[in-house]
């Protein structure tokens, strides 16, 4: 496939001054944005048939365009739905169109609510994931890791490396991210050491995470891939859920990902988080304030009752204030830990999980999935059992190592 063609269904970006940013993000991943052309008569008919009575003509146009895409009257490789942040009418349309396209076509779709501050950098990972799904379906269909490969996940909080041989993890390395390249080198060293192999023996390398390009260049990676597709692949591989639907939740150090997956390939996904209050960073702060290691926060939270402490970490500053107030008022560390976990889970639930279709099994991954209190809080909110696979914190590195095996010479 040459250039990936992404159909844009939107209201407002050209008037918000961000259309240029959307175009730039697409161009950066060798894709082009286009607006599906419709006849006026088709517009009216499609809009009426869809049945959602909105007042904004641009939203009516978006609905008609979605119908044309789903019915195959217009060809596209992927769909990008964008509307103004804080517009209720547009939010309803955005969600319904995303669901409509997901349920009625195989087109990968991502929706986004922008402000005038949205930049191409913010959109890049989403566009990269969209184009990967469209362009590399064959690669993403890979279910078995072969040969000796390594995956490196250069995350905002931690750097992870994994060495795999013939579908088995044989070495892991993990450390907090400081200087990106030094952290990657150390994670690699640890993973290779545990695996008992040398760098020269590794047949293919994949990188993901925020530092993927820098680290990818540094290690001469065969595959440099955003974390949405890689994490989906890693999650279904580790959870043994490669076939059928699943939902992957990754509450990261800087942002969160919620991905609706079908046969290991993301269909719809959201990425973001309004504030660090809804991320692993808030849980790190909580553990510091409670004087416990982050690894102890989960077991502590399991002993507490979140309902006993009012806490809303919508903003990390106010969330920390609630935490301090609760401790000053005599709340137990157990209840505070449970409340912090509940608060983070609640925000991911309210802000992100509403934008993807939750289908079982639900798989939680990333370092925060090891905090049992957070997983329990999410289970309560979703009313379902959540799978946390072994090696869940290495999800990106595992996904990279798995996909990288498609690049072994002669494969």
């Amino acid at each position, binding site marked *: 496939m040459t250039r990936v063609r992404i159909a844009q269904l939107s*209201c*407002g*970006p*050209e*008037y*918000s*001054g*961000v*259309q*240029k940013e959307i*175009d730039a993000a697409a161009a950066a991943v060798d894709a082009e944005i286009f607006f599906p052309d419709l006849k*006026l008569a088709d*517009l*009216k008919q499609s809009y009426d048939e869809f049945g959602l009575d*909105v*007042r*904004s*003509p*641009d939203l009516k*146009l978006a609905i008609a365009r979605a119908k044309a895409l789903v019915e195959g009257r217009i060809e596209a490789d992927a769909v990008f739905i964008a*509307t*103004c*942040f*804080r*517009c209720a*009418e*547009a939010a309803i349309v955005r969600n319904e169109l995303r669901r409509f396209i997901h349920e009625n076509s195989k087109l990968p779709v991502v929706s986004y609510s*922008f*402000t*005038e*501050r949205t930049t191409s950098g913010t959109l890049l990972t989403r566009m990269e994931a969209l184009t990967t799904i469209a362009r590399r379906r064959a690669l993403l269909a890979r279910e078995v890791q072969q040969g000796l490969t390594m995956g490196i996940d250069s995350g905002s909080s931690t750097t992870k490396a994994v060495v795999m041989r013939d579908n088995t993890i044989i070495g892991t390395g993990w450390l907090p991210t400081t200087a990106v390249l030094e952290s990657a080198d150390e994670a690699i060293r640890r993973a290779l050491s545990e695996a008992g192999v040398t760098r020269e023996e590794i047949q293919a390398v994949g990188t993901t995470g925020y530092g993927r390009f820098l680290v990818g260049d540094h290690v001469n990676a065969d595959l440099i891939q955003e974390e949405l597709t890689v994490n989906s692949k890693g999650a279904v591989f580790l959870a043994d859920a490669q076939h059928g639907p699943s939902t992957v939740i990754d509450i990261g150090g800087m942002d969160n990902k919620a991905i609706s997956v079908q046969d290991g390939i993301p269909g719809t996904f959201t990425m973001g988080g309004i504030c660090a209050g809804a991320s692993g960073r808030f849980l790190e702060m909580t553990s510091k304030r409670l004087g416990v290691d982050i690894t102890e926060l989960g077991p502590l939270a399991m002993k507490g009752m979140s309902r006993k402490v009012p806490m809303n970490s919508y903003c990390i500053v106010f969330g920390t204030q609630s935490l301090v107030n609760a401790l000053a008022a005599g709340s137990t560390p157990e209840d505070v830990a449970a409340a912090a976990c509940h608060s983070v889970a609640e925000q991911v639930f309210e802000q992100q999980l509403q934008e993807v279709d939750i289908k079982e099994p639900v798989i939680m991954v990333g370092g925060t999935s090891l905090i049992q209190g957070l997983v329990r809080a999410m289970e309560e909110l979703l009313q379902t059992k959540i799978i946390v696979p072994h090696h869940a914190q290495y999800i990106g590195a595992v996904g990279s190592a798995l996909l990288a095996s498609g690049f072994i010479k002669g494969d």
Partner: protein
Amino acid sequence: MAKVFIYPTTSLILSDLVARFGHTPLSAALQIRDRIQTPGLESPPLQITPEGPKKGLRWAAVEVPSGVRGRMSLYGPMIEEAEAAIIINNPDFSFGCMGCARTNELINFLIRKRKVPILDLEYPETDEEGVEFVAAIKRFLDDLNGGAA
């Protein structure tokens, strides 16, 4: 000659009618033409940059979506400049399409608040209504000149 704000502001037909009958139309097409012809700007397709929504704060508060504020940065100055207005209610998409319903509500409110002469018309559905539609616009525009044709 009066500056006449038109709604939908994107209507080329309405803009042309106003100009033909001797007045200056305040329309989106002319505003956007000015922007596109301004050297140094590179923000296609409308040459509205992220500064637009910030300028729009004059007419809509910060909690209003950026698309509304960006549109108001275009239409707000036209409303303030208007000496008269022609408003077509329930127009067909082909006549002129205003994308955002919230912006349209605000535009209609602000132009009426100006207390300038306003012609309110329903979009014509038949040929007869169409003829009367154009005649009503001509009468209104003539009256702005003190009745001179």
